[in-house]
């Protein structure tokens, strides 16, 4: 869902024919992510994630931990920046049909310009963090075959004889 948003985001700013359709999806999807990321964060606090697996060296654990935190922060910030920049530009923030959100910032073009730029920079940063995290997970899953993926998904990828619980 979040990855889809990044793709829609870069596609819509480069598109003439699909711009309107993509923006119409981007806005409500962003707000949906804002709600879901809050629920997910609360759930993570209530049900802490499993411990890091034994095959991860300490520096890799630090990287994994902070990249997860960074991704949470960005997933939370991005919809708010988007909402804020539309507010500063005084665009109506339409979700679907007659449902719209109120502006959360005053009408200011300079504020819009800064937030619009921030929205792009954080999006690229998010994509880079995702790629780093994704590569790390793939490395553990495909090369080391140490069952790290079991920490991430609710189903068991490898049998218990390879990675005893």
């Amino acid at each position, binding site marked *: 869902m979040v990855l889809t948003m*990044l*793709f829609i985001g*870069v*596609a*819509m*700013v*480069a*598109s*003439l*024919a*699909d*711009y*309107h*359709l993509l*923006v119409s999806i981007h806005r409500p999807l962003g707000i949906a992510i804002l709600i879901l990321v809050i629920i997910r964060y609360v759930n993570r606090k209530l049900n802490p994630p499993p411990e890091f697996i034994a095959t991860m060296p300490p520096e890799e654990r630090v990287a994994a931990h902070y990249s997860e935190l960074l991704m949470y922060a960005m997933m939370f910030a991005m919809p708010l920046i988007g909402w804020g920049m539309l507010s500063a*530009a*005084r*665009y*109506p923030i339409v979700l679907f*049909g*007659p449902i*719209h959100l109120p502006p959360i910032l005053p*009408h*200011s*073009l*300079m504020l*819009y*310009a*800064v937030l*619009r*730029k921030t929205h792009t920079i954080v999006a690229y940063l998010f*994509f880079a963090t995702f*790629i780093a995290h*994704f*590569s790390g997970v*793939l*490395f553990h899953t*495909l*090369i080391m075959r140490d069952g790290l993926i079991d920490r991430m998904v609710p189903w068991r990828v490898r049998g218990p004889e390879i990675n005893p619980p």
Partner: protein
Amino acid sequence: MAILGALVLCVVGSFAYVGGWLSPGLLTPGRFADGFQEVFGVHPGFRRNHAKGVCVGGYFESNGQGARLSKASVFEPGRVAVTGRFSLAGGQPFAADGPAAVRGFGLRFEPRHGGQWRTAMVDIPVFAVGTPEGFYDQLLASKIDPATGKPDPAKMTAFLAAHPETVRAITIIKAKPFSSGFANATFNGLNVFRFTNAAGDTTPVRWSMVPVDAFAPEGPADAQDKNYLFDALIARLRRGPVQWHMIITIGQPGDPTDDATLLWPDTREHLDVGTLTLDSVAAEAPGNCRDINFDPLVLPDGIAPSDDPLLSARSAVYSQSFTRRAGETKEPSAVTPAEVGQ
């Protein structure tokens, strides 16, 4: 390791592809805005097109007739506040007014309980081009050659040869005389939109603002006053409110909806849905019409775009122009009502 590399490359590659980085020839909103800057120069803080303008305010009094076609709150009987901007086509904010420039009218309807509607209209009956690519080619073909002070005739001839729809549209545009000013001009929404009423019925429509002020034919440019069109509007507004009837033209099945170079037959039903009254005028300034993007796809529930490819492209390029000028230092506009003689 190869699979890992391939997977990562695949994700990064598709990201770059949809972002347009792998297709440098693609006509993007950014390249469009670059085109305007190439033709008109860069004027920081101003719109890339329709750069010269003035802000107006007033209200729209709906007579309730429009509710038959659209459930948009703006068509419920009653008064809705509006913010508008009159402009001249072209990207030069300090150009002299003249009979050649197309006049624009951006309007934002602000119903109290949501359902905002924005429209950007012009005083010609059809667009000269039917596609974004056509618009871009026409823009570049009309670039002034510094040596002659005129567009290169060879480029314009080549453009028209490749675009018979433009030749046809120019005939339609020239068939009707232009008015003497902003206050007695008819402004047209040009593109087709879809209205949906409370029962769920959808109708293709176009709209126009038809002036109450009497028509007078356009005269030559005023050599003494480079803002003569705007100054006449300001003087007219000082004498009292200026009004337009909002006329909806109702399309029939089979009427073209995806080609803004074509007119519908004159026999189509015209519905008067209310009266627009403008009663104030102000120079562009922070927080007023200067800082509004009159994006034609800011539409309320009950109004939707048609399949006209110009609409999404207009929205994308207006947004690009808005974003570029938002971050630039602003300077005062050419048109300043306070300085126009009482």
